[in-house]
């Protein structure tokens, strides 16, 4: 059976939340449903865009603190002598 727009939107939201590392508890799913309802009501022509806009308002997404992917540079030089 082809998915409805609402089902597609819900799948996308849940997949995004899962990809962010959020656990999909019952509460999270209920919130996702509410989010989809609001998004489809506000922006029925662009449902996917709508749900992604609403996501930040409904969910606190885990941040990623990538401190020091490389350490501070301590610049030196290479000496080149005779062959």
């Amino acid at each position, binding site marked *: 059976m082809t*998915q409805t*727009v609402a089902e*597609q939107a819900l*799948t*996308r939201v*849940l*997949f*995004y939340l899962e*990809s*962010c*590392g959020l656990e999909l508890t019952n509460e999270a799913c209920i919130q996702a449903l509410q989010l989809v309802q609001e998004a489809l009501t506000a922006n029925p022509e*662009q449902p*996917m*865009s709508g749900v*992604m806009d609403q996501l930040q308002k409904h969910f606190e*997404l885990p941040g*990623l603190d*990538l*401190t*020091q*992917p*490389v*350490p501070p*540079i*301590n*610049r*030196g*030089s*290479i*000496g*080149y*002598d*005779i*062959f």
Partner: protein
Amino acid sequence: MRELQPPKSATRWRLTAWFRRALLTIIVFSQTGVGTHYLMQVLPYHGGNLVEQGLIVIFALLFAWISIGFWIGISGFLIRRLGGDRKSLAKRHPDAKLANVPLTRTAIVMPIYNEPVNRTLGGLRAVYKSLQQTGHIEHFDFFILSDSRSPEIWLTEQSAWFTLCQELNAFGRMFYRRRSLNMNYKSGNIADFLRRWGRSYEYMVVLDADSLMQGDTLVKMVRMMELEPQVGILQTNPTIINSKSLFARAQQFANHVYGPLFSCGLAAFQLGEAAFWGHNAIIRTQPFMRYCGLKRLPGKGLFKGAISSHDFVEAAYMVRAGYEVWLEPSLGQTYEESPPTLVDDLTRDKRWAKGNLQHMWLLFFGRKIHFAHRMAFLNGIMSYVASPVWFAFLVLSTIETTRLVLWPINYFPNEYSLHPLWPEWNPEWAVSLAISTLFLLFFPKLLSILDVMLSRRLKDYGGLFCLLRSVLLEMIISTLLAPIRMLSHSRSVIEALFNVTLRWAGQNRTDETGWADAIINQAPGTLIALSWSGFAWWLDPMFFYWSLPVALPLILAAPTSVLLSQTALGQWFRRMGFFLIPEEVYGSSLLDSLEEKDLLPPQITARPAFHLAVLNPVINKVHCTFARSKLHGAKRKRVEQLRQICLLEGPDKLTRAELSLVAQHPETLQWLHDQAWRSAADSYWGRELARRAK
């Protein structure tokens, strides 16, 4: 630049080194003299014509070469029987003394170039965990130094780095850097690291993509360096591990059984003027930065441009500056992998041949380079030049035989001689000479068996019966491979001397050789061998039988190549008790750690890395953190066009270079991520998301 004052060694070793080397030289020269004299008696005209003179010179060169290896093996055996070399670093510092030496900041660096990510960073994970178990991880930082060009590979590397840091809680200790400009190969990669961070670390341990080192060994090396401030480089003797194919397992076995003798002997002659092999070694960073910079060669052809085999040169420069370079075979649990197939091995040799031949420039024009390192350069050059020399010997032998069989005997080869020269045949002397040459080649292997027995390590190899039959099989395999290598190395030398461009690509450590590839690769050698042996049979049956040890392996080169590359065959032999090594008999924590699970699970590696970079919110942020490029003007407009194409039609519509441009721009990556998640269900990214969500 500030000059550094290398401290003086507390232990005197130079006189010992001089004495040992002088003794070796006298013995080798004497033995070569005897062997050459024998050959002169064997040859019909006793060197009375140009062809025979050529044969004598070539024979002397090859015989001396084999003799050096022989006596290094003998010396290694004797030293091991005496309990080790009293001049070695390990003998000066027993473990109890080392345990109290404080550690200092050390960088463990792994330069990589288009390597299989799971294996490479999985190996680094194993090293990290091993170091963690020593309780001294806080003194070490890890650097993944990537030169990878393919965006699919370096994006995967970045994802793997993130996964590794999460798994090991290694943020702030494990770092990743990718060079956007790949200058001067691996040595340039290391130099870039040193320019940025070298001053922060007292020592640097260099690992290759396939290296494994036990944490205890790393800690011990740092402590040894602390106690020996005049040592610039301490090189371990890595043993081969993790071999699956029959070819790699034979190499691995030979390395384990024969390696201790030869490495011990080599270390005894080199002492503080040893070579550096580029990996599985610890380096004192400040003198390395000050004295080991590699200038581009100023000559022509092969002798123009970056030095590709940098390690030998860096060791020579370190010693020239007054520091010492030591090979310490007693430092165990340090490993590398073998190329899985003959084709991969010969491809690697092609690069190394060029690198070693480049050293001729330094051999002849290098200033103030110690004699020991000039000999190390010569040794490296001869490793490859010996092959065309051997080939020339076969050619001259064929010419000599042809002349003797087809042409009338020339009783006056010297036109001014009054006396005729009667050609003499002494076939029994020829047989003696052949047997003595075989003795030089194979006796050290038999001595290795004795060494294993006397050091009570038979169980390491599955027992005496397993060891003996493994050695026999290894001898058969190496005999089959020797002529194939001879021909391949000869070609590599000629290509290098005429400067055919080589591409420095990542090594294949996984694929087997197919029949089509093997036949095509080995066809030239097979055809030469068939023609030669056919001609030999026509010329003289005795000459035909003499040619067989070289011709037959070349004729069988294709099936040899295919069969040796088979992993299933390698594992079958392993189950039958062939080519066992201690790490397989007793287990190895490093190997267990390497094989416990893939760093990146299949659901990640099964899809293109660029898709993951765009779609996965976490991975997208990781890549945005690394992406640094700032674009303006025309380039910015170009990237904006490319991102539109990527959004609407997918990344397959972009070339590799375009994909790289997009993936290095953080704004574009972020934009693609946002737009992809907002895209309609029937769009490219909408469908991709639907597939992944299932």
